[in-house]
């Protein structure tokens, strides 16, 4: 532990800090288990070779494979349809951001109802290229789950039929809340947040284009939505490099 403990209020303002620097001496929970213990892992390695980056066993019996994000669709399709795998139940799609610029992991939790085995598939996406193929053609359950990942982490799912924000309003301009660089109280000052809330038009919630043929939602970064965020009471880091990092549009960052 570091010498001085930050006050709770400061932590709230700054967001969570990665504790890996301070806990380097801790043992890792990754158990060294022979990968033969999960037939899917062996079969996947034989079939896809280099596209399976590594294999971990977490919490005793949870097998995780890290796959090439460019080939996730292919691998997941095989996991779903191969008669020896039959992972027909997509339990969860989510993402993990470890912060400090480390890649964001997209996590697929699969279960096979007929064969009663489960596996977790992870794909690591660098912050500069948050794009991955959608698996909605395989599992319809992925539709809202991927929308949530897009909403909360800003990961773009290619070929998703309806990639919009789902929990946050469509006009939400402060970025993607579950990213580690997102402060707990949002990017705008409380005054600016109130001003925007009061300035909301009914169209923000009743979108006529919902049913129109050419439904196109504007994807707007938080800097582009008119007014610059008001200088908050506490000084925020506002250098240009910071701004590009906070951009919601992954293409801009490149």
């Amino acid at each position, binding site marked *: 532990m570091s010498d001085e403990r930050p006050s709770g209020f400061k932590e709230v303002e700054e967001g969570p800090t990665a504790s890996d620097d301070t806990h380097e001496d801790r043992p890792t929970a990754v158990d060294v288990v022979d990968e033969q213990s999960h037939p899917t892992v062996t079969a996947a390695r034989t079939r896809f070779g280099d596209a399976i980056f590594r294999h971990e066993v977490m919490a005793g019996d949870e097998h995780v494979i890290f796959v090439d994000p460019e080939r996730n669709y292919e691998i997941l399709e095989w996991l779903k349809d191969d008669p020896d795998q039959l992972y027909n139940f997509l339990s969860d799609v989510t993402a993990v951001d470890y*912060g400090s610029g480390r890649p964001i992991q997209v996590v697929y939790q699969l279960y096979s*109802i007929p064969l009663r085995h489960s596996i977790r598939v992870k794909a690591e996406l660098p912050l500069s290229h948050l794009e991955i193929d959608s698996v909605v053609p395989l599992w319809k*359950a992925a539709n809202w789950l991927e929308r949530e990942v897009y909403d909360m982490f800003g990961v773009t799912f290619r070929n998703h039929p309806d990639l919009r924000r789902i929990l*946050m309003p469509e006009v939400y301009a402060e970025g993607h809340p579950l990213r580690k660089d997102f402060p707990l109280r949002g990017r705008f000052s409380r005054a600016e947040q109130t001003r925007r809330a009061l300035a909301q038009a009914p169209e923000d919630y009743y*979108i006529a284009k919902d*049913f129109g043929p050419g439904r196109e939602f504007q994807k707007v970064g938080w800097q582009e939505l008119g007014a610059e965020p008001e200088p908050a009471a506490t000084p925020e880091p506002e250098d240009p490099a910071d701004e590009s990092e906070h951009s919601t549009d992954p293409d801009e960052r490149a």
Partner: protein
Amino acid sequence: MSKRTVEYEVSRTPELGMDFRPAQGPVSPSDLDDPILNAEKMLINVGPQHPATHGVLRLVLELDGETVVRCLPHIGYLHSSFEKLGEYRTWNQVIPLTDRMDYLAPLIYNCAYAMAVEKMMGIEVTERCKVTRVIMMEMDRIFSHLLWLGTWAIDVGAFTPFLYAFQQREKVYELHEAYTGARITTSATRIGGMMSDMPEGWAEGVRQWTNQLPRTLDEVESLLTHNAIHIGRTQGVGAIGPEEAVNYGLSGPNLRASGVPYDLRKDRPYYDYETYEFDVPIGEHGDCYDRYLVRIEEMRQSCRIIHQALDRLPDGPMNVDDPRVILPSKTDLMNDMESMIHHFKLVMEGVQAPPGESHFSIEGSKGELGMYVVSDGGSKPVRWRIRPPSFVNLAAIPHLVEGGLLADVIMVNASLDIVLGEIDR
């Protein structure tokens, strides 16, 4: 003259301007084509403030006459970002957030979270704690199903079952309060055990309640199960086949009503569920009526489980003897330096979970409730994710209602048994 089409817009349309008026003027009947009855679509907005949406759910329905052509759900009105808040709290401080998600079955969420963290940390809780949690989870399964039963009956037009169900729910509220001091926000679990041992007479209270619950269920069933109106409103409505149901990720009673025997208590048993004797009801048609039957039977089966659990409830400690997670006793704290250090570290820093992660699922009242916890070795989660069963179940609602009638939307929505607190989180 061209065929008349009318476009309905949900709101003001900036393209047309505020003063936009449809064409006016006298039109003689002979100028008109034959009426095209299916040419006009109507938009109906249900919710977010509507008693039949069971919360702040908004459905935008495109109607052709009375037939639903498209359904677009809008959610997020109750979004409180629990997952983000959890990243700023220590492992034990997250527990109060869990019961605020599904306030209809808070103890199931308390238990699921504690179980996921315990699995990640490799902690095996005591036998007494296991059995207590089984009792609590089954009690809250009934608790949640009873609310579903009451609101379902109201949606179908029957008021009496609502009163019967809430009479029974009130007894569960009292049991919650007796154990935890709170009626809804129970926060009963801790990492490695429970907040306390059960109060004297509590187990007996649970037994008495489960003894008289089946009678209420019989009464409600006598009102609904063979009721012609109920059957007419629900049979064949919102049906979904087994393959589709799995593909849509439905879980819990909604999936089992479609005939897929997937129950985590049987398929991936935890807490010795494999040693309890109970049946998993399976539907046949996957329609609203089968979902009703499955849930009614699940309540009876939960009563069976509770009886067996109460019979085998062992004596012994409730919390694990592990200084990493459980505070030492006050006597030890006062007499023993090591206990004092443990106490100090636990209070000041909280539980320290080793780096690792776990995606742990249990059979919640709404379906597969998964808790995904990721630790980097600190006292706070790096990521805490809930696999929300209602969220995934609700995502299938466009598929279930499209092509049906407007009145059936309400029944389908009621049959899915959603809770918006958990959908929006």
